[in-house]
């Protein structure tokens, strides 16, 4: 008897957990507080994704370094030796690796976020937690790979600085470079979250998009100045608008300016890219919060 009294007593003294479940209204509903409450789960996801990615492989985390190096080698042959694309007077290896720094993160994070509802369908069907935990953990988890790639780039950069004429070229001050790099990386993250969430919501409903996504990512890669400099496309060219409207152009060019000291980056380009990115983020979060409510019913 005393037990029931105790429990009813504690029930009334702790009304801080009151969950009301009803058909939700409203447009943009990001459960910030709840996301904070689930921060431990967020870190668990980050750890899980990182530590399981290369388990049961011979080389393990070395792949984080080897993969971009191998891709750089391929690019050097295909785009440098065969297609003779210019590299803004930067050693080709350095140029491609720098481009890959900005692109690899985006091209791994965005599709991963886009698959949130499909790859976690089973989990989402069995238990509740703020669904945004998954995209956010991807966003942060992939930074580890980026850091390793950045270290690889630094090693290569030092080599070129010491042993080649690249060392004599003037750069921009290191604090400007750091600020430029960080803001560009931040924009890439926000963009990956926005586009990823938008596609996640759509893929949850229309599985067709799963098959389109790799193609879109591929096209996007060629539309972004990764294997070629933006300077190659003259401002009067027919396709210049694609580069301008593409929100990945500005961060790719910014990272080149920051790390290589030369690119066609302008503040206006960055401002436009940020504007598009913020709009995509708002649209993405809206679509995601709409989808998470009932996506389980169709998944």
């Amino acid at each position, binding site marked *: 008897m005393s037990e029931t009294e105790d429990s009813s007593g504690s029930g009334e003294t702790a009304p801080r957990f009151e969950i009301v479940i009803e058909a939700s209204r409203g447009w943009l509903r990001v459960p910030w507080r709840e996301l904070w409450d689930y921060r431990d789960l967020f*870190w668990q996801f980050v750890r899980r994704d990182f530590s*399981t990615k290369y388990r049961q492989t011979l080389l393990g985390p070395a792949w984080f370094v080897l993969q971009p190096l191998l891709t750089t080698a391929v690019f050097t042959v295909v785009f440098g030796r065969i297609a003779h694309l210019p590299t803004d007077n930067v050693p080709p290896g350095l140029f491609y690796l720098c481009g890959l720094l900005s692109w690899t993160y985006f091209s791994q994070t965005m599709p991963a976020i886009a698959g949130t509802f499909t790859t976690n369908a089973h989990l989402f069907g*069995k238990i*509740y*937690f703020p669904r945004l935990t998954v995209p956010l953990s991807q966003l942060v988890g992939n930074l580890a790979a980026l850091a390793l790639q950045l270290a690889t780039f630094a090693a290569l950069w030092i080599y070129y600085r010491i042993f080649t004429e690249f060392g004599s070229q003037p750069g921009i001050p290191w604090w400007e470079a750091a600020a430029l790099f960080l803001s560009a990386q931040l924009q890439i993250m926000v963009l990956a979250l926005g586009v990823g969430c938008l596609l996640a919501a759509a893929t949850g409903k229309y599985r067709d998009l799963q098959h389109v996504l790799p193609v879109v990512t591929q096209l996007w890669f060629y539309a972004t100045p990764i294997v070629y400099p933006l300077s190659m496309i003259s401002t009067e060219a027919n396709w210049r608008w694609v580069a301008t409207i593409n929100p990945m152009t500005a961060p790719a060019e910014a990272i080149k300016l920051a790390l290589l000291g030369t690119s066609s980056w302008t503040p206006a380009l960055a401002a436009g890219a940020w504007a598009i990115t913020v709009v995509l983020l708002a649209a993405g979060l809206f679509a995601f919060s709409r989808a998470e409510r009932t996506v389980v019913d*169709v998944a």
Partner: protein
Amino acid sequence: MSRPIIHVEALTKKYRLGVVGATTLREDLARLWGRRRIDGSAPDDPGEFWALRDLSFAIAPGEVVGVIGRNGAGKSTLLKILSRITEPTSGRATLRGRVASLLEVGTGFHLDLTGRENVFLNGAILGMKRAEIARRFDEIVAFAEVEKFIDTPVKHYSSGMRVRLAFAVAAHLDSEIMIVDEVLAVGDAAFQSKCLGRMSSVARAGRTVLFVSHNMQSVSTLTSRCIVLEGGKCVLDDEPTKAIQTYLRLNRSTEAIFSAPPKPDAPSITHVSLTTSEPGSIHRCGAPLVITVRVHAPAPLPEAQVSVQIVNEQDVPIVHLPFFDRGQGILNAAGECTLECRVPSPRLYLGSYFLRVHLASTRGHQHFQTVEGICPFEVVMHGMDRPWPWRPGECAYVEDGVWTTRLTPAAPRP
């Protein structure tokens, strides 16, 4: 009654039939186009399915409530809404407390991670803080009995070990409300009883439990109240024994005689009837009982096997009456065979019973048919006197014991 800890008001969930399963873009565009042309939607679309319709109930803190119902009655939908996995179409549910919902054991287990890593991952998925898991880690591992393998990847575990570890994590969740869905149907018998023990200690500690199960045994031992769902609505909200009776009746015939047309392509049971000692399917404990089964075979059936089970209200089989064709050749030719089973003195206890009949063949271990919940009858204790009233549920089976007594006189006081 204090403020309800779970309060469900007019909860409704509607599914559109045919769109369960991801659609293609083209289908949706076509539907959008179609809707626009019809101009205004039809009032009650036949393509709609109401998984829950205006369901309301309230649960007080500390109550252990069972939810039972047939498949498709809305149990899973209710759990999914209360666990916040999906949203209701209308209505509202208020939960006043931290919720632990266990719709499955081991959700989110990653096979490549070790037991230790999975405890932390799974705990976090269930909503536990890292510090909380770390504090109870040893307890969890001890409960799961996997101490030796805790640093081995889970993929090398046996399925029993995986389930034990997963349940152990869930069982150590501190929450005011527990929502549990038939997770006890897994694991070996010893572990199941351990889980049940854990559940009832959780209940005794004053936590609120909402428990969905098909296992009437665990529902009746664990819960203090039961909600019976049928067609998305609550048909009964009462104490477990009554609710279980209602649920079982939903599944059972009230006809005293079972009969079915013979199947043209397979052996089948065509008739089952029961001769009780009293009229109206009332049977006196200890009196002879006769069960008649007719079996039809479209082709000769060698080594036929017919077995009858007498099953009680809780769905527990009490008596097994097997018949094996050991060369008699009861169905040597196509046709119908009547089998009569006379039980001279069945000592079933007071209560309601049903029959369950199986038809199989020993050759090749073929199973043809099982009919369940047929030929209901009541057993009365009339004629078996004792100076104490017979009460339901005291036992399943009565026996005449031969008692002998011997007095050991007390030692004389010094």
